[in-house]
């Protein structure tokens, strides 16, 4: 794995290290499929906004960069949402609820500010994709944990994302499981995230001791 990719997926992961975009990360990760949907939506939006922010570099001045980014991101995402609603309605039913939430994801602002506004468009697209992927993977892991502990199932409602064959990957791992409500409710998200952060920190410490 190249340095470029490893930093974004692991070493400087947006969710685990920078703690960016916690609002959607914690709110929509109660099932694996919800988390996956939000992850996919986040990746696509951050790729598009990184690209556009990179394109307007020539007119982006230091003093007005934040309002420019906000303007651009908010309107592009809104336009995307309307287009999706009209022309890809099936997809909209699945991801549509996540899209307005994404506008508030500071991960997107952070990438616009820290990377896309200083680099060429092809690098910005690549950056957006891998940062988004790092975020989506963490989100998916939290979704898996919360769903398994909270409901004893995995991939319920997969048909909403994958169509009819999604029914085949819906698993009930713990039969007659009465559920562990706290894992599904918001506190469960904090616990799951804390576990992942702890594992990541442990690995980092071990790595620096080995060195």
């Amino acid at each position, binding site marked *: 794995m190249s340095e470029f990719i490893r930093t974004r997926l692991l070493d400087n992961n947006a969710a685990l290290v920078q703690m960016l975009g916690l609002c959607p990360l914690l709110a929509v990760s*109660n099932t694996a499929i919800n988390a996956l949907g939000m992850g996919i939506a986040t990746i696509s939006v951050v790729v598009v906004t990184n690209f556009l922010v990179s394109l307007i570099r020539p007119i982006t*001045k230091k003093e007005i960069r934040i309002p*420019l980014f906000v*303007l651009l991101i908010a309107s592009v995402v809104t336009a995307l949402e*309307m*287009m999706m*609603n009209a022309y890809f309605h099936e997809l909209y039913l699945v991801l549509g609820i996540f899209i307005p939430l994404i506008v508030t994801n500071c991960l997107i602002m952070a990438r616009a500010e820290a990377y896309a506004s200083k680099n060429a468009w092809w690098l910005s697209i690549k950056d957006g994709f891998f940062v988004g992927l790092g975020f989506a993977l963490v989100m998916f892991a939290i979704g898996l944990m919360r769903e398994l502990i909270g409901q004893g199932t995995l991939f319920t*409602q997969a048909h909403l994302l994958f169509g009819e064959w999604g029914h085949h990957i819906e698993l009930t791992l713990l039969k007659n499981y009465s*559920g562990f409500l706290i894992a*599904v409710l918001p506190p469960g998200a904090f616990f799951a995230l804390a576990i992942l952060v702890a594992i990541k920190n442990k690995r980092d410490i071990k790595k620096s001791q080995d060195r």
Partner: protein
Amino acid sequence: MKAILNNKWMLPVILALMTLLTSALLMFSHEMTVDKIAAIKSENKLASLKKLLPANLIDNDLIADAIDIEEPVLLGHRHSEKLYLGKKNGQITVMGIPVTAQNGYSGDIDLLVGVLSNGQITAVEIINHKETPGLGDLIESRKSDWLLQFPNKSLNEPTTNQWLVKKDRGHFDQITAATITPRAVVGAIKKALLYHQTWLSANAEAFKP
């Protein structure tokens, strides 16, 4: 060019231009999609109406014959809603009754309940809700078959005092780890059935066979 751009007077100009551009983008995409979205919405509405009001019982135009009602007490409405009347040969055969459950877990749950003239439920559709994803939203028919326990039920079967979830010693299944939402929905459906009874007796004269 560079010199002009670096002039401090250019900053508001850039911002204004960008605002203009993004507003144009939004106007354009709204203009392009507004009809299509409205069409999809009314299509979905018709599709759910068809589920509630079986086609073989109806020969009228549902949308045109719908009447506006507002029943804050009986049906929990917060604003006026459409009551759909399915008629055959001028007689009411089936009704689509809008009801709002104000006691959901988070926010209102809007339902449409289809009721035959003998008081039996044809189907129940959830129109709108904000219940917890993965828990309360299992009331949605595309997410679980919880709603399928209602068709063919009426106020006689089970009896009126059995219109509760099992946890409250009633007849209906709840959803694991979510009791408040099903409780609210069952209560709302019962309200719709009661309203159906009163409405029929109140309007018996107007629609006598």
